[in-house]
């Protein structure tokens, strides 16, 4: 399995290179540049700025310099928009924030979602089932860009319990609303997947056999049904994990957390090439890594899979 992991990680290098190359070209092809503005800069000023950032060089040279600096100096370059900061700075500041609320949301979505799903399946067609299913559907149907403002309206303005936004070093009152807003819809999906998977497993032959042998229900569920139930859940969790870390721009926008999602989208709009590329590489690398972890987790859940 170690060999397999190393092989997978090595295979990630050409994938990432391709990603960098494609992003590099696509960004530059997009109309407008980092210094296109409502007040077009006088040609000489623009030329000075482009020279400073190396944008006057041919594209292959820019690409080469970019890769060289990453590989040998781990330097992702300066931000074109935020003149006092470089990409390493921006990622170092924003990523831990995204990671914190993303990870907590992931935990919340998974634990609540799986619990709801299992409860619904075990008490199939009872009020618990109906309750869990309705809750899951409602959670899934409520888009987070509606959820965000509603949470702020209720908890900040009406009840006055929680601050309406900000980060404050990740103090818990600042985390509650972002985590609820980000985890809710995933929680709904996880609950539904878990429920249907569990129902299927509980109806399978080997569970019937186990029941016939008189094994206590609790043991059947935890020891025999749980692992196969979680297989489809795990394959869903991989992308979700990347998504809670990357797709969190709405959390940054509504809750002003200062996370990386906002920096990412902002950099695309302002054509801040270096920030956009840097964050793309980070997210790309993260996706490769999480996919690997998901595959390894399969092996644990399903011994039929061998590497």
């Amino acid at each position, binding site marked *: 399995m170690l060999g397999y992991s190393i092989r997978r990680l090595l295979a990630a290098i050409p994938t990432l290179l391709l990603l960098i190359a494609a992003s590099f070209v696509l960004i530059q092809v997009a109309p407008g540049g980092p210094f296109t503005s409502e007040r077009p800069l006088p040609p000489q000023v623009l030329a000075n700025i482009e020279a400073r950032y190396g944008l006057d060089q041919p594209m292959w040279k820019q690409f080469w310099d970019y890769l060289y600096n990453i590989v040998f100096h781990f330097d992702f370059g300066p931000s074109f928009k935020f003149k006092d900061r470089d990409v390493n700075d921006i990622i170092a500041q924003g990523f831990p924030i995204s990671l914190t609320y993303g990870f907590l949301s992931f935990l919340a979505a998974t634990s609540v979602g799986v619990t709801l799903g299992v409860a619904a399946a075990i008490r199939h067609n009872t009020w618990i089932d109906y309750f869990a299913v309705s809750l899951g559907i409602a959670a899934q149907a409520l888009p987070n860009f509606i959820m965000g403002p509603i949470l702020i309206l209720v908890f900040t*303005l009406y009840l006055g319990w929680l601050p309406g936004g900000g980060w404050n070093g990740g103090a818990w009152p600042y985390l509650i609303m972002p985590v609820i807003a980000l985890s809710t819809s995933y929680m709904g999906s996880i609950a539904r997947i878990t429920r249907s998977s569990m129902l299927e497993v509980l109806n399978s032959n080997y569970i019937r056999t186990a029941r016939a042998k008189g094994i206590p229900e609790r043991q059947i569920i935890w020891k025999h049904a749980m692992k196969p139930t979680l297989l489809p859940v795990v394959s869903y969790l991989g992308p979700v994990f990347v998504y809670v870390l990357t797709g969190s721009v709405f959390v940054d926008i509504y809750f002003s957390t200062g996370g990386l999602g906002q920096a990412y989208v902002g950099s695309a709009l302002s054509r801040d090439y270096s920030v956009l590329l840097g964050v793309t590489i980070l997210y790309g690398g993260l996706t490769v890594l999480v996919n690997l972890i998901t595959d390894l987790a399969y092996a644990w859940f399903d011994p039929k899979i061998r590497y």
Partner: protein
Amino acid sequence: MKHIRNSALATLVATTMLASPVLAAGTHPTTGEPLADDQTFTYRVLDEHSSVDPQVVEDVTGAEVVRDLFEGLMNQDEEGNLVPGVATGFTTNDDKTVYTFTLRDNAKWSNGDPVVAGDFVYAWQRAVDPELSSPYAWYMEITSIENAAKIIAGDAPITDLGVKAIDDRTLEIRLSAPLPYFATMTTHSTLFPAPRSVIEAHGADWTKPENIVSNGAYVLTEHLPNERSVRERNPMYWDNENTIIDKVVALVINDENVALTRYMAGELDRTEVPAGQFPRLKEEHPEEAISFPRLCNYYYTFNLSNDGPEQFKDVRVRKALAMAVDRKIIVENVLAGGQPEAYSFTPAAVANFEPPASEMASMTQAERDAKAKELLAEAGYGPDNPLKFSMIYNTSESHKKIAVAMSQMWKQKLGVEAELGNMEWKVFLETRGNQDFELARGAWCGDYNEASTFLDLLTTPSGYNDGKFSSAEIDSLMTQARTASETSDLYTRVEAIIAQEQPVIPIYHYAGVYMLDSDVGNWPVNNVEQNWYSKNLYKIAE
């Protein structure tokens, strides 16, 4: 370190209290209003600032922070008048080409070093230095300081810039052309001083809170990008004893409705009012909802370049379209924030500017509509041959509403078929800049309180003239205005030509539409440039 600083601050506050008993009593020294114990001003900003380096900053949000952290030669008061800053005053020669500023002897950097004339020389040379490549280097060009343009182009060393420290207290500036309003330009951040030793020691990192040294009423103490920046009282500031606000917090909140909710929850002292919500807020919170004129215009420009559509080359078509826009509906029903209707390109709020008595402004909307029909028919367009064109704007809810309203007005009144197209901001700028459009949205905010900052846009050589309108008469009037001592008449004449030629359709002029907590004292609503200084504000006890 922090402890030492705090105790130094305490000593200072104590001495201040002895020196000015009025403040000690907790009332404002001039108005006598009771002051709040917590003198923290918290406001919302839409986006993260680009920089707090005075020579580099290019956005309004950043400039607001920089204006608190640094102080230039001159400041503005609540009305926008020029008042002394680091300089106590200035003299100028008869033809306004040499300015000599006298610096006060008690101005200090936050590390205790004196602010000297050399700090300005260093900063201004920095602003034109191709190596720093400031995006605001163009501002140095329009100040007309000798050799600025040459240095930016790399044709002269930075030491050739026409600014000299005669001694530590005397700064001499030589201009390549007479500029009567040069002193007002020194209130802009590009011309603020910079601390050489700090910049040389820390490089690009010098603006980080742990490194920065500044000479304004505040110092930067915290910065969490995309979340907040905090500035606190600078005990070294020469006028610190008259500063009342202790701490200023700028919170980045992208969504204006969330910002309004947080304002309502008491987390903010100031926020912008989302379009259309002003009337309701004004009714519910008459003390807090405020609207006042700003130095910005909103218009649509015709593409008059050779690539532009043939139909717009006919002035009757341009006039008809301009007349048929019911600006009253747009400002009252779409924006509803107290914005003035626009019949001139330059906002009437601009100092020393008198809009011409234009035909359009004096007519009723019904008369305008009738006239528009007449003009369009004369130009050969009618039900059988409807006028068709496309109009573009950058993606935004309120731009869309205005564009839809305009196209509907044209359709109903004139049978014109305007096709709407929205574009993402950078794509829009590129398209408009390449004259790849027929009719395009435009907006401009004045860089200084003078009509030329708007009217220059419609001169032939202007890099911002995306419609490529060209009038020899306007060009010559604007050239005259540059050196004339009395400019008001010239600008009125330029506007009269614009009204006649109609290269643009002015729609409205901006208003600052805010929710401002009634316990914030002295907000400069009369400063049309909205150059506000936290040191002039105060919080009233509730």
